[in-house]
């Protein structure tokens, strides 16, 4: 029906009869400048099902979602939505919580039924109900949303999507910033929606979730539809093969893990390191060649350990020692001078320069090297960009694009490449593969491993336990600001780690 221009939408007053799809997109195309984001995208959503939408970074998932929600105009193709764009609610991949508004106002922002003269009193109980359902009983309705931690903001966003009471609910990587407990709540919410007859689209790079949750799975590759199957008919390997296509599986063959713990010499020592109000004094040694994971729920302080080591905790106590030299005072530059490099957990906020080209992002932490004597050398910058781009599996042709034009996962790779550029002695990462697809994630782990093999130490905070187990040699688990235990990953399973960070036994909590 439509080619270009407005996305034509079926009259919303005509409800979709049973058995008819709520949303049907076929042959949708969309390009940004020279980039064809959607080549031929098909998707059909039925009420009462959870439909996983999978694909590599840049496959076009988010773009398709935006077209369905009416946020972007397709260049061509057909789109039918039973209830119109207004019957589609979306949790976008990038946070769309408005920091200056209260939690209450955020929940009802853009809600179609809110009257021009707002009567907040009548909205409060409704908001409360939706928030409580996602485990946000403790969150004050009047608190500015910008003050909430990242995970809670993400949950509020999900609350907003459910509060709209649309028949199609699309969740674009809703769990990327959440830890397992919270993820369970989101699962429950998604199931409730399905049981109420909604079509739920679930986009995620965590394949485990998909098998747990989804009824149907659609895979996209290079902007086009690859396949749609019942989830039960697929295996992980099949899924991965479809997602990454010709690159197939041999690329996932990983460098064998060398357990370095106890073998290498201690490169980094944290001695009685503490940040008042965040985490209690802890001791930790990282050997050269070792990847140490650190994990915990919100409020565990685990993420603050990485930030503090990277120089961000201003009031820290204790010592950070790298190769026998103490990092005398807090501060990012000081940490960098001692060979500590940091990868932020919030790439849009402070992880990448969205306005700046990929190449210039990559060189941003080593300007001294690409500009000897203060004058930039184009060739040096270019070859640096190419080298690190290759390591991080960033499309070479995108080196000249503004980072903001890349898909979320590819932005994450840029963030990593940038921090690896200085050749750090200690690489500190905060949720390093948030939103990164399986293929690229494996590549990133490989690279972390190579970096470690070259003698660096790696400290990695993640709430993704699969990541901890896949990527790390040792893990530090934390609960309410204290270390629960430090253990070799080998022999640990997710259950064990989860137990640590949820219900630590009294005697296990370090004094």
């Amino acid at each position: 029906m439509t080619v270009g221009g407005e996305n034509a939408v079926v009259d919303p007053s005509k409800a979709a009869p049973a058995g008819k799809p709520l949303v049907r997109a076929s042959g949708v195309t969309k390009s940004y400048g020279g980039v064809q984001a959607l080549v031929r995208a098909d998707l059909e959503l039925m009420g009462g099902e959870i439909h996983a939408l999978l694909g590599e970074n840049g496959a076009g998932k988010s773009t398709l979602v935006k077209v369905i929600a009416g946020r972007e105009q397709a260049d061509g193709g057909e789109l039918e939505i039973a209830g119109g764009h207004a019957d589609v609610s979306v949790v976008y991949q990038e946070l769309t919580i408005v920091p200056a508004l209260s939690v209450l106002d955020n929940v009802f922002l853009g809600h179609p039924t809110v009257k021009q003269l707002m009567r907040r009193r009548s909205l409060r109980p409704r908001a409360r109900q939706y928030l409580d359902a996602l485990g946000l009983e403790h969150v004050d309705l009047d608190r500015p949303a910008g003050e909430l931690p990242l995970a809670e903001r993400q949950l509020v966003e999900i609350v907003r999507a459910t509060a709209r009471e649309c028949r199609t609910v699309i969740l674009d990587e809703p769990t990327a910033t959440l830890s397992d407990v919270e993820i369970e709540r989101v699962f429950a919410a998604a199931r409730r929606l399905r049981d109420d007859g909604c079509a739920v689209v679930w986009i995620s790079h965590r394949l485990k979730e998909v098998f747990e949750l989804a009824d149907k799975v659609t895979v996209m590759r290079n902007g086009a539809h690859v396949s749609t199957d019942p989830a039960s008919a697929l295996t992980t390997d099949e899924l991965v093969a479809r997602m990454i296509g010709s690159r197939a599986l041999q690329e996932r063959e990983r460098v064998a893990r060398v357990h370095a713990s106890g073998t290498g010499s201690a490169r980094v020592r944290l001695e009685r390191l503490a940040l008042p109000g965040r985490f209690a004094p802890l001791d930790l040694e990282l050997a050269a060649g070792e990847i140490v994971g650190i994990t915990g729920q919100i409020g565990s302080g685990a993420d603050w350990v990485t930030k503090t080591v990277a120089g961000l905790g201003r009031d820290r106590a204790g010592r950070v020692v790298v190769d026998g030299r103490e990092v005398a005072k807090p501060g990012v530059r000081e940490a960098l001078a001692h060979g500590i490099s940091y990868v932020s957990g919030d790439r849009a906020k402070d992880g990448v320069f969205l306005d700046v080209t990929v190449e210039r992002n990559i060189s941003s932490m080593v300007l001294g090297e690409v500009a000897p004597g203060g004058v930039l050398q184009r060739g040096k910058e270019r070859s640096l960009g190419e080298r690190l781009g290759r390591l991080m599996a960033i499309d070479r042709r995108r080196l000249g694009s503004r980072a903001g034009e890349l898909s979320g996962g590819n932005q994450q790779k840029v963030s990593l490449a940038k921090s690896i550029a200085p050749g750090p002695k200690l690489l500190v990462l905060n949720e390093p593969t948030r939103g990164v697809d399986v293929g690229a994630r494996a590549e990133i782990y490989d690279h972390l491993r190579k970096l470690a093999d070259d003698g660096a130490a790696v400290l990695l905070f993640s709430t993704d336990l699969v990541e901890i187990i896949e990527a790390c040699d040792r893990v530090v688990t934390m609960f309410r600001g204290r270390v629960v235990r430090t253990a070799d990953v080998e022999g640990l399973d997710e259950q064990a780690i989860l137990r640590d960070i949820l219900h630590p036994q009294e005697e296990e909590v370090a004094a």
Partner: protein
Amino acid sequence: MNIAKLARDNRASLLRIALLLALVLYFSANRAGFLDTGNLFSLMQAFALLGLVAFGLSVTMIAGEFDLSVGAMVAVAGIIAIKAGGSGAAAGLAVAVAFGLGVGILNGLLTVGLGVSSLVVTVGTQIMLTGLAYGLAGGQTVSYENFQVAADVDQVIATIFSPRSLVAIAAGVLVWLLLRCTRLGRDIIATGSSREAAAAAGARTRTAVVVSFAISGTFAALAGALLAFSLLSAAPTTGGDLLLQAVSAAILGGVALAGGIGGMAGVAVGALTLTALNNGLSFIGASDAAISISNGLLLLAVVTISAGGPARLAELVRARIRRPATS
């Protein structure tokens, strides 16, 4: 709600009010008569102009935009009011305000329609409006013959107010209500706080921007028209300093340049602070240099305090002191 928490949550607002009180205290201690009704009337008259313009401008700032054209609007609206006021001041006022509304909407539409920074758009309209002012006035100061009108708009009400200052106060209250109690107001704040996020969430960001410019255009025009009737004349050069004063008032009042933050109560305090400073300095007959320098110091102090400057300064100093000890 306990008072300590309330005080902690509103530290910045309390600081601002304290500053205003300190100024008032200083001037009245320095010279008897500062708080006399006659002088308070003069203070409120000054507020009538600055406050009104600042209220409007700060709505655009809260929406994450900026209206550089308010100063020129004050001038041109005054001229329009006088030219169109031949058959009666009310008609002149109406035409001028309608003009302000129209230009405001135009500013807003250009900004959202072109998807460019409103600073650039309003630099353009600012220059054009000034040209229009010169054109309409034919290079002259235009004057109004009906003396009664000036007496009316500036007549004393309740010893320190006048219709002009009451209009300004009413305008502030209206916007306060808009931002607090309406969906549009919420969308304006959301738009300023995070444009992309607000739009993605379905807030009417374009409407919000256009409305905020409509408000600032209307308020500036209203201020200009009332001023013209108060002075019985209007000149293309009016309002030259007003823009910077209004920005200062808004920022003193806690409106963030980045958008999303601030409210009319704060802006009122900000405008009153500037007004009290200028009124006070003029009251004690301060020298030219003293006026400039105290204005500068006050602004610098407020902006430093509101940036958490003293604490940062202490921190920087501590860091300096600590460094040699560790090496």
